[in-house]
């Protein structure tokens, strides 16, 4: 058949003529937008900057915006001091078995989380009961929680978030804004104050230095 000259041309012409009458695939984008399929989920991806570090600052905004709450995440806060979380407890990456995570290709949890000890939840529950689980009185709740524990444990903040319904990121943001609220036991800061107290009185040293330079500068 292929030896017949011009047959290929004729078949090509028939194809293009057929295409000519077929419905067109162009979508006039700004005026017409395709409907997103109901089950469309997209693909979540963390981006890296030009230095190869993750751009994610663990701000939880994506997790807050997610309509179906499929995002769970954990990481260090922006000062690199505290471990913060988003998501239902059973979906924490950190709570999963490490080998299972490796097999699934997900990031392996940060062992640093292990140093966070369990705290007595009853005390924060009592505080929440006293303030009627009202997220509008968050500052009072946080003050009372700090008074109960001496600081704001992560587990207590998670408990407040779950019970009041306020997003964890908002509680964390509010707690990190006020200088008198702290996320670590007072001993840590007290130790730093004690070290500072043991140092030679810097002010008197500087005053003596100035006196020695008097008239020569």
């Amino acid at each position, binding site marked *: 058949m292929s030896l017949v000259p011009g047959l290929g*041309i004729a078949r*090509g*012409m028939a*194809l*293009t*003529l057929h*295409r*000519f009458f*077929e419905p*067109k*695939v*162009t979508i*006039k984008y700004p005026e017409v937008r395709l409907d997103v399929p109901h089950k469309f989920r997209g693909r979540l991806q963390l981006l890296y900057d030009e230095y190869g570090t993750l751009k994610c600052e663990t701000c939880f905004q994506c997790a807050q915006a997610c309509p179906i709450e499929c995002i769970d995440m954990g990481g260090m806060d922006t000062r690199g001091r505290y471990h913060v979380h988003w998501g239902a407890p059973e979906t924490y990456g950190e709570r999963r078995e490490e080998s299972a995570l490796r097999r699934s290709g997900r990031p392996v949890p940060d062992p640093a989380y292990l140093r966070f000890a369990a705290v007595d939840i009853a005390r924060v529950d009592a505080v929440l009961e006293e303030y009627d689980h009202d997220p509008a009185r968050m500052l009072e709740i946080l003050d009372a929680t700090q008074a109960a524990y001496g600081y704001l444990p992560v587990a207590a903040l998670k408990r407040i978030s779950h019970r009041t319904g306020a997003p964890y990121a908002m509680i964390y943001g509010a707690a990190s804004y006020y200088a008198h609220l702290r996320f670590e036991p007072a001993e840590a800061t007290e130790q730093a104050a004690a070290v500072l107290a043991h140092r030679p009185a810097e002010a008197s040293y500087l005053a003596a230095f100035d006196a020695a330079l008097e008239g020569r500068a």
Partner: protein
Amino acid sequence: MTAISRSWSRLTLPGKVIFTALPLLAVLTVGLVVAVALLGGLLVDLAAANLEVVRFLVAATAILVMTIPTAFLIIYMEMKIIAQMNLRIGPDRVGPAGSALSVVHGLKVLMKEDFTPTGADPIVFTWAPVVTYLAAVMTLLVIPFAPGFFGQDLNLALLYFFAIGGLSVVGLLMAGWASYNKYSLLGGLRAAAQVVSYEIPLTLSVVGLILLAGTMSLNTIVTNQSGWFTSWYIFRQPLGALIFMIAAAAEANRTPFDLTEADSEIVAGFATEYSGMRFGFFFFAEYVNVFIVSALAVTLFFGGWNAPFPWPWPIDVSQLDPGSLGIGLLFAFLVIPPLLTLAFAAPLWVASSRIKGWQALLGGFALANLFLIAILAAIAYAGIDWVAGLLWFLGKSYVFVFVFVWLRGTLPRVRVDQLMDFAWKWLLPAALLNLFVTAAAIVITT
């Protein structure tokens, strides 16, 4: 004095020009009227005495003006049809269904810088697009568009057509040579090689037809094919028509033979250094060539302006004399439009209770107008032979324009060696075979 000078200083530059030119224009208009009044009769006598000169001037102007919308239309057809064949929508923004896009393209080309490269020969460089364009346009002078609608009925029309069409090679070579650019020169030489090679089978393919028709006058060739479509020359010269179409595609630089400016591969060949409207003329000439080649194919092989069947009910328009109705004509003008409007509005009114009375009247008015226009068009078609002829000629020509665009949407480009091989090893022997067989048949039958 100060008021006048202040007013003058407040005019913009165009305002000053117009203010100065207006009295001049008035004087010229009065002069023209006086001149027509005094010399009008003399001028009419002069024109009547030199009717051939007047005819030439009118035909040349008409054809030059006609090429521009033709090129616009074919460029639009090409964009739209190839888009549809690619399952795209194509142009749809400017004008109805994007039909004004080629006009916008033309304006864009007009506004671009008209650049002449350093070292180029400015005279030859400037005249090359003119030669190419005029070679295309001048061939239209001998094509019969309709009975009585042709520039000149030469008895050597076909020879004239190929001779003038061959001039376009000169334009291509001028463009390549004057650009002072070795790539342009190579492109021009390649274009010349292609066009000259394909001119030989193109010309030889119609020699058999000339033997059959016994004339080279295109008008006579068309009148020879009148009557039923079976008298078209395609049925007596099928091989000639095939060779003609292939060689014509190469002659008009169309796919699959568009190597002269293969826009997806090379930098426009001979037109590399051209920009602005000079490039626009090459571009225009290409699309005018498509129309010319289609028109010549229709003229030679597909009956020209003849309908494919004889019209069974000829109406003699001269017998229709509306003036004989006298005062009845005035009465008809008064009565027929409202009656027709009511007649067409009634079914709309009856059809659906949702159509309001004024809507039905409006629709009836529109339908009545369409009906009257259709009747007038039908009378013009049946009674005025050049209307029917022009419609058939343009319709057939644009069918072939569609075929050329269709080919472009389908076929890939040939290689340069395949191009030359095909012209010299296949088309030329086939054209000679066609010529000898036709000649032998004529000798045997007479």
